[in-house]
């Protein structure tokens, strides 16, 4: 188990190193002179020169990469050119909106998907299964940001149960959770539809396995066999999807924030793009990629927890 975790950890570190190099190359090398690019066409040569030295662009590229990556490791993300503020602090503030939103949605999606998938698999081919599958077919076809607009129209504008957007801050925890509820539902429903379908088909595959027949020969009912032997085995493909979903939810959160005017990473990064603040873009992108790689790592660990065969092997 320890070996397995160690091996995954090495792979995590390698992925991060390569990903950071890719991002660095795209942002700081591809545009030619980032300083000139950030200041736009009307900039004076001496202003550009000042920014160049401020950003350390006069240093060799390798040194710049190492100091950027090293800074990241110690929590120093550099200074935003437009805001004149440490990027780390700005990102941290916004992350407190986007991350809870993604996790809230992940929890909702899992809570919805498991009963739906189990129910559909247990009632395979009957009316209940057809109904659940029909609903998920629709669920996977709906763009989450459009669904969010419909939710606003119904629950905020027509019924008035929720605010149409904005975020009160975590000083008022209940109000904050309420403000995140519609966005989380909008994010979660399409993902829940996918997860329920994956769970159902994984369970149905496993119901055909020999060991389910063995369990039935011991005297377990069909549902007991599904519950005790099917579910844990079905978790292996389902975990893969849950892991992938987190990155989709994080990306989705960035889009959904636009519908609800939430002060999350999304607003930060779109402002940074329009202001050509490459330092902020670079940091937020690295953070997003880090989150995805980290979740992959955690998913790998979860595999080993579910499947004893993995603990021994590589």
């Amino acid at each position, binding site marked *: 188990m320890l*070996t397995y975790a*160690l*091996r995954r950890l*090495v792979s995590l570190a390698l992925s991060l190193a390569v990903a950071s190099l890719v991002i660095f190359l795209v942002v700081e090398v591809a545009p030619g002179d980032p300083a000139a690019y950030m200041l736009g066409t009307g900039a004076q040569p001496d202003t550009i020169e000042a920014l160049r030295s401020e950003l350390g662009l006069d240093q060799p590229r390798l040194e710049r990469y190492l100091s950027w990556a090293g800074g990241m490791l110690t929590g120093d993300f550099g200074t935003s050119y437009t805001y004149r503020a440490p990027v780390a602090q700005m990102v941290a503030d916004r992350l407190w909106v986007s991350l809870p939103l993604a996790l809230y949605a992940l929890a909702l999606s899992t809570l919805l998907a498991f009963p739906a998938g189990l129910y559909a698999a247990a009632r395979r081919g009957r009316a209940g299964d057809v109904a659940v599958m029909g609903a998920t077919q629709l669920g996977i076809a709906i763009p989450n940001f459009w669904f969010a607009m419909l939710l606003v129209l119904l629950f905020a504008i027509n019924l008035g149960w929720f605010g149409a957007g904005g975020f009160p801050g975590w000083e008022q925890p209940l109000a904050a959770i309420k403000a995140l509820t519609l966005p989380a539902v909008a994010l979660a429903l399409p993902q829940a539809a996918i997860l329920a379908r994956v769970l159902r088909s994984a369970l149905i595959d496993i119901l055909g*396995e*020999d*060991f389910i*027949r*063995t*369990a*039935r*020969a*011991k*005297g*377990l*009912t*069909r549902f*007991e066999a599904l519950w*005790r*032997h099917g579910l*844990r*085995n079905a978790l292996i493909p389902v975990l893969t999807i849950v892991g992938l979903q987190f990155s989709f939810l994080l990306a989705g959160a960035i889009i959904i924030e636009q519908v609800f005017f939430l002060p999350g990473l999304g607003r930060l990064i779109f402002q940074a793009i329009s202001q050509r603040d490459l330092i902020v873009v670079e940091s937020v992108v690295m953070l997003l990629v880090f989150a995805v790689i980290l979740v992959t790592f955690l998913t790998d660990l979860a595999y080993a927890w*579910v*499947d*004893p*065969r993995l603990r*021994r*092997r*590589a």
Partner: protein
Amino acid sequence: MSLLSVETLTLRIGAKEVLHGVSLGLDPGEILALTGESGSGKSMTAFSVMGLLPQGAVPAGAIRLDGTDLLRLSEREMCRFRGQAMGMVFQEPMTALNPVQRIGDQVAETLRVHGTPRAEAEARAAETLARVGLDPERIPPSRYPHELSGGQRQRVGIAMAVALRPRLLIADEPTTALDVTTQARILDLLKRLVREDGMGLLLITHDLAVVHGIADRLAVMQGGRIVETGPTAGVFAEMRHPYTRQLFAASAHRAELGPRVTHGPLLEARGVVRDYPLPRPHPFAKRDSHRAVKGVDLDIRRGERVGLVGESGCGKSTLTRALLGLEPPTAGTITLGGAPVRAGAKDRHLRRRMQAVFQDPYGSFDPRHSVGRLVAEPLHLADNIPDREARVSEVLEAVGLSPDDAAKSIHAFSGGQRQRIAIARALVTRPDLVVFDEAVSALDVRVRAGILDLIARLSREEGLAYLFISHDLSVVRGICDRVMVMKAGEIVEDRVAEDLFAAPEHPYTRELLAAAPVLPEREREAS
């Protein structure tokens, strides 16, 4: 009153009737073998008793266990019977256990489902595991299935079935997936459990030699009917039904090899070693390796028929792949007619001279191609065959098929016919050597006998040399001049077939021969 009595059982699956009035009885402490070829309905009979039929299957008639008609019980009542009054052991030990649950918990589940409290169930599960021969010192109940060998897993399967000491045990081909020495031990275990618990055992098996060694009574099934039944010794002595006689004859079949005619060396292997890298214990460790083949020397002469026997994991598949030039040996040399065999090398003449027939008749063909295209596939190796269509027709006829079959899709052919097509494909380049890699292992006995006759005829008529690889001693015995026995990566005995079977020298060969189940003497003489 008998323990189990099946009365005129019929079974419909959809519109098709697969069992037509099956009747049989089983007494406590008795072993009844239900035998027949695949598709005869023997497994369906067993699953009808357990009430574990596929969806859409409708049984009719009566199945009485201690007087209760199981077919009249509700699903919920059947769940109380399963595991408690009757247990079942399945064929595939590799897939019959839940891979993510400890073996102790899986055995304890049988007890807990039927109301035993957790602590007691765990204690009794541990006892049952010890009782079926899993030493708690070596194989504790905390193990997972993947940490066990096939035979050990089958013991766990048996422990789950007998944990509550059921009155009836059903075993569906319980040793078919196991090696011969493991098979002997599992059969002994089943016999002991029947004796100790006084339960009735319904044993489903296709192997008449196994039947002869274990069963008190025997029922022969064909096409959804029982064609002959009675005490084992009586049935073997009389064999009233022609189908029974055919099965016996095919099981004991020896192909007519003709005299051994060899001339000059063909395949030579010297000091062949093959290592497989093992996964690293941690990311920075040095990679260890497992030596699957440990310095094998081997010769096959032109026209010679050689057998290679060994149990699973002995290295015979690895050695075969090296000989065929599919994987490079780690060390050693292999030559065919003096030319080196190198993996990956595009030496067309060498490839033309050595072909192979593999085990799985259903996996051996690209499902998208016609028979003609499949058989012709190796022909691009042979410049000396100008008329390809004529050659394909010729080999199809040689293996007992029609030239018209070339236009058909492979889906139109049965398992036995497919193995004939595979042989045609191997012969199409006029090779000097054909390797048969478990080529008859997936076939029913009567089909197998036909294929063995075909191989023998080809060898007699065309002087074909072959290497026949099998786990089954009795098959190799009937088709080879010389037999090599492989164990743990080494060839431990290599002798003329007659001598090897008459007076085995190596202790392992003796163990294999002793473990192999045998047909009754009378029959072997008669065939």
